[in-house]
């Protein structure tokens, strides 16, 4: 009888894990398929594992976070309530790691 009880407990924990997995999926705001397509549009890139795409998806999210947060600092400094393009521009000039984006700004 106690076996059945432990099994039932496992069932419940499985369901709560599914819930956690669903929450985990919600952490990936960006669609993995889209990111994979963007990666593949580079002719040099041939194959990427699913886990690599997941890693890059998370990194891109973090990138958006950093970009937004840094830009907002500039917005608040100028005492504005709307984040404008110039906030991004000024911020991209200051940080080294954003240097690669200089080409993007001109477009």
């Amino acid at each position, binding site marked *: 009888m106690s076996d059945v009880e432990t099994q039932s407990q*496992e069932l419940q924990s499985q369901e709560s*894990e599914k819930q956690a997995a669903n929450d985990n999926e919600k952490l990936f705001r960006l*669609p993995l398929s889209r990111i994979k397509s963007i990666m593949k549009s580079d002719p040099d*890139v041939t194959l990427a594992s699913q886990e690599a795409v997941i890693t890059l998806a*998370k990194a891109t999210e973090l990138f958006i976070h950093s*970009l937004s947060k840094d*830009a907002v600092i500039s917005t608040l400094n100028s005492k504005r309530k709307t984040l404008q393009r110039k906030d991004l521009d000024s911020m991209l000039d200051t940080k080294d790691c954003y240097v690669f984006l200089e080409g993007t700004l001109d477009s």
Partner: protein
Amino acid sequence: MASSSALPPGDGKGEDDELSIPRAALNKMIKELIPTVRVANDARELILNCCTEFIHFVSSEANDICNKQNKKTISPEHILAALENLGFGAYKEDAEAVLQETKAVAAKKRRASSRLENLGIPEEELLRQQQELFAKARQEQAELEQQQWIQMQQALQEQQNMLQQQTLSPEDDYS
């Protein structure tokens, strides 16, 4: 509300060059991050383009690392190394954490499903047995309580009887 994964693939964006992450997903993320600040449209557009550029940049670097190791498939380690090289080492920890979580959840699911499968008892049967157990426990509890109640009644009755006898005898003396 439809999740972004429900979007049909290739929705009008046939050209590889026009690929980018969906606007709605980006808007949601920014809203959660800085809810009090409004964001101009052209600023959103710019962030979107920067993301795409970021993905290209990191993939390209990861691809180089991958080739140097004479491997054909880009692995998460390559991505992490690329992040480090490009000055985004700060992202490594979080990216790694998410990766571990995904692996752990997937592994647990496999183990759990194989455990249940090995027992040969389907889910419905387990649930049914669980319900039976609960019902049985409830019944036993009810029976126990009823017994206690009966015993209490009996004890109370005996006490009353004794009291009556005591009160009766003095009255007899007075008659």
